[in-house]
């Protein structure tokens, strides 16, 4: 079975973001970028399926600027066999990404597609579900366990209030939650080998997909700052403050 895994280049999760002075967007100049953490989990799951002999080939795909090839190289170093970069400098919304990925699914005919449940920049949590709808394939979102069982895929999902397990026909679309696995680090020899693995570079126009969206970003602001309060010296003082000052007890 071929596994397609989608990865996104985003700001490193440890970086404290700054809003641009003109409030047009977040300032990403000279900011450390990395693979979206949920995408790392997706790559790891695909590679584990290959190590188990379930997957025969792992193909990584990314939509984004030229620099997104760094994250594709990382995917190759982690164990993906080849990569597809769909290069664009435009701001690409989830719907356009899903349309591009649907075209890749159509070309590649994977048995399973794994994506992160959300990217930590836009926090949208949409692309996997949109891809499933556009390809008319079943979806297992927010996965904490994925088991291939014959011609079915059992996905345990993290839902409000607990866990839900569903069975999907294959091919299927899976989005990862945090506890699906713990991603490995790339080893130096694998990073060197990854440089020789094939990377196919395409553009949205190759697929006839228009990336422009009808959603416009009018303004980006910093949230209201929460001021730190006071330190109290004892439990008695805490209870007194909560009762008499904050009036929440």
């Amino acid at each position: 079975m071929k596994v397609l895994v989608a990865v996104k280049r985003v700001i490193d999760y440890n970086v404290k973001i700054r809003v641009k002075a003109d409030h047009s967007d977040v300032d990403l100049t000279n900011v450390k970028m990395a693979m979206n953490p949920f995408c790392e989990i997706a790559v790891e799951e695909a590679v584990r399926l290959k190590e188990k002999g379930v997957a025969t080939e792992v193909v990584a795909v990314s939509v984004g600027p030229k620099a997104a090839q760094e994250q594709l190289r990382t995917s190759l170093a982690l164990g993906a066999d080849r990569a597809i970069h769909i290069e664009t400098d435009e701001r690409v919304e989830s719907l356009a990404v899903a349309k591009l990925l649907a075209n890749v699914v159509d070309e590649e005919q994977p048995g399973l597609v794994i994506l992160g449940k959300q990217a930590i920049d836009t926090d949208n949590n949409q692309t996997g579900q949109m891809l499933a709808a556009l390809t008319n394939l079943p979806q297992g979102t927010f996965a904490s366990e994925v088991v291939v069982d014959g011609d079915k895929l059992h996905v345990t999902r993290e839902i409000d209030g607990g866990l839900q397990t569903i069975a999907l026909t294959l091919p299927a679309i899976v989005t990862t939650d945090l506890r699906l696995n713990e991603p490995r680090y790339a080893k130096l020899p694998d990073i060197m080998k990854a440089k020789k693995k094939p990377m196919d570079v395409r553009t949205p126009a190759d697929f006839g997909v228009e990336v422009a969206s009808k959603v416009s970003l009018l303004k980006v602001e910093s949230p209201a700052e929460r001021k730190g309060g006071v330190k109290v010296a004892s439990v008695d003082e805490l209870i007194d403050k909560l009762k008499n000052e904050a009036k929440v007890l």
Partner: protein
Amino acid sequence: MSILVLADLHEGQLAGATAHVIAAAKQIGGDIDVLVAGEGVQAAADAAAKLDGVNKVRVADNAVYAHQLAEPLGALLVELADDYSHVLASASTTGKNMLPRLAALKDVSQLSDIIAVDSADTFKRPIYAGNAIATVKSDDALKVITVRATGFDAVDESGSASIEAVDVVVENSQSSFVKEELAQSDRPELGGAKVVISGGRGMGNGENFKLLDGIADKLGAAIGASRAAVDAGFVPNDMQVGQTGKIVAPELYIAVGISGAIQHLAGMKDSKVIVAINKDDDAPIFQVADYGLVGDLFEILPELESKL
């Protein structure tokens, strides 16, 4: 304008989040219909009909909609959406699961997790784990939106909407339900609780989370956890508060043994009053806490419980 709100269900009953989503719909303006879809959901439909501002409750009661599977629910929404200018759902795991399917099949973008309504086409939503707030405008003919419940005060139960059956039945051969393991608790749900007490890595192990029980009982609080505590296996994932877990905004949030990573702060910093209990004087949680108490939680918690 006319708005369809997908009701959020929890074990077949109407979840509290729905009343918050209707509040957002009222700010957009127009007729508000609520869709209750599931199997054996008459009680949930009755509850939805009582919510203030609801024009009509539409009930799709059929086995194919049981367990809120994405494929049939998404197909049902696609069937119904043409009557509406906006389709809203709570940004719960159900709403997040369904709504992007509707958006994609209608070839429109989705606005996720809105926290404010500026106008019928312009909304505010947090990005970068809430470290920035984006104002976004949608020119799509159909607006597909998930709503962060904590951004809107719930409507009250003064309504008496009509209830009508929806007889759209879709096929689903792609997905099937296997099992569900839901946490059983007498405590309020995290998302709707007035008081939340959460434990972090500093709790040391799962057994020690029992130290929070007595305090939670006295305060009528829900119990949450940081990702560190969940990842360490102390408690199940549905207790996680943060960017990728539950977003809460109670009257009182008590963070115990939680250092305060930005991903955790993203889930609780809109709480009215924040208390932090931590042995590390420099923990970032103190920068957002209204009241900080530095000390050993194993001494502080029993004392707090006894004095409340």
